[in-house]
């Protein structure tokens, strides 16, 4: 997942990342194919030379030897101005249009089965950055027909819905990188479709782990296996303590 996510980021782009897998992917991209990738963190860190993985998106690692330590509004407004290409998001649930739930599980807002943290910066970043990348394990509990709560807008209920709601035109979910496949969104329907399968995974397997009906790109690709070099860098430089890798 981390290697596939890293390859989605081109050199010279700007990306707002969170902690964990997204940060590992961005660091890997920086050390391989995208040395001039600018990392930003929602609490205000810009362009750090990350000495190791941050624990919090606001901790001092996020601006260690950085270019700027600014404010949350400055980061979000930079996204709103249209400068930021990518953000990485996750969530407890995702639907066919790439809408995300990180607020609650259950059907009663005042008495949820599980209360989750809420939007944090996710709904802002998912609204204001050009392209949203999602990294998530792939199973039927997460890939659902209907979210318990729409925290962060994907394509909402289909083509034109983002624009009609007042979200910036031309923005939205771009890729969903899972434990089984890399998925994208159909240009016409805005529904999720498989772009490439991880080695050894079948379409049936991915569909079985997904509640909603998935489309398929043609021809269907195979996700590149992580190279020895990528794995070396991940293990030695990005995550030497194994916080993310091998979990």
């Amino acid at each position, binding site marked *: 997942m981390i290697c596939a996510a890293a390859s989605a980021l081109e050199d010279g782009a700007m990306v707002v990342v969170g902690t964990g897998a997204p940060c590992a992917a961005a660091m890997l991209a920086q050390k391989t194919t995208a040395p001039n990738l600018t990392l930003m963190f929602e609490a205000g860190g810009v362009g750090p030379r990350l000495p190791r993985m941050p624990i*919090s998106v606001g*901790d*001092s690692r996020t601006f260690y030897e950085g270019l700027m330590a600014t404010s*949350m509004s400055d980061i979000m407004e930079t996204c709103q101005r249209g400068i930021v290409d990518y953000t990485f998001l996750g969530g407890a649930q995702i639907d066919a249009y790439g809408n995300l739930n990180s607020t609650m599980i259950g059907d009663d807002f005042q008495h949820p089965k599980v209360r989750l943290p*809420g939007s944090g910066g996710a*709904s802002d970043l998912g609204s204001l950055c050009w392209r949203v990348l999602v990294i998530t394990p792939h199973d039927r509990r997460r890939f659902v027909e209907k979210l318990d709560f*729409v*925290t962060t807008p994907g394509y*909402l209920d289909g083509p034109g819905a983002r624009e009609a*709601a007042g979200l910036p035109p031309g923005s939205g979910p771009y890729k969903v990188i899972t434990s089984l496949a890399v998925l994208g969104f159909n240009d016409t329907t805005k529904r999720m479709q498989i772009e490439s399968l991880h080695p050894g995974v079948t379409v049936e397997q991915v569909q079985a782990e997904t509640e909603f009906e998935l489309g398929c790109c043609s021809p269907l690709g195979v996700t590149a296996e992580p190279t020895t070099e990528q794995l070396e860098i991940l293990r030695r430089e990005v995550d030497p303590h194994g916080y993310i890798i091998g979990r």
Partner: protein
Amino acid sequence: MSMRGKGPLFAEPDCDAARQWFRDKPKQMSDKVMSVEEAVRRFVADGDYLASGGFGGDRIATALLHEIVRQQRQGLSFAGHTATHDFQLLCAGNDTGRGQLLKRVDVAYIVGLEARGLSPHARRVVESGQVELCEWTNYTLALRFQAASMGVPFLPVRGFAGTDTFKYSAAARVTCPYTNQELTVVPALWPDVAVIHVHEADRFGNCRIRGTSVSDWHLARAAKKLIVSCERLISNDDIRRDPTATAIPFYCVDAVCHVPCGSYPGNMPYEYFSDEEHLREWLTIEKDFDAYLAFIDRLIFSTTNFEEYLERCGGAARMAELRKQELEPR
């Protein structure tokens, strides 16, 4: 789409009432240094709307939050803006046999401690339904402070439209008079009281922050009452030698508390890293309710001040380790 989210407004966006408040606020360059106990006793009242600076577990005013819990304030509203350990701390005042500290919460991020996991006790408090919630996002709550700091009743944003987050917020929809675009607007938020931890302050409340400011530049200007805690108390001459470094001016500040290590167990940029072992212990112990009660009794309720808490967490030796982690991260 409805024109306004159905969430409740916990504070009225009345800019003229705020102007009157700020007009009447004492503005002399007086000595505001006092103990944490006195600052909380004088400036945090039952029923107040409270906001906490920093980023949940980064540059937070832990000593002031402990004292609010220790003095058992009741019925507070709270801005859950990037709240993690700060929210976890305040939840120690709910469901632990001491009344109900939190009553209403504007939510952007609560209950979780980022990658560290969810707080079992915060979940108990929130999932029981005893706390009234209104949903926002990190940026829109920051923008509410920004509107208040500007002295205007609302500000527009292009985000979070079309979501349940909007539906359960108190945001509204407007049409731009220039472009006819649909926009979301969020109401100004003037908290009754805010607590912010800074690197340096003089006795009058002129403050310096190093590293990211998160939303504290606006929060300090939006808060009706502001208590700052500082790592170091410096002279007014020091402030005047480098006025560019002043992030918060004295006229925003009501109390200055000198609390070295005051963000512990949170991170303080360029000073000390977060105590991940202590935070992990806290999360683990919350699973067992009786053990949790004994834990908060030992660390908060049976201590008389923050220094005792630091001692019980390893004192100077532990702080030296965290200082090393912060200054030599490679």
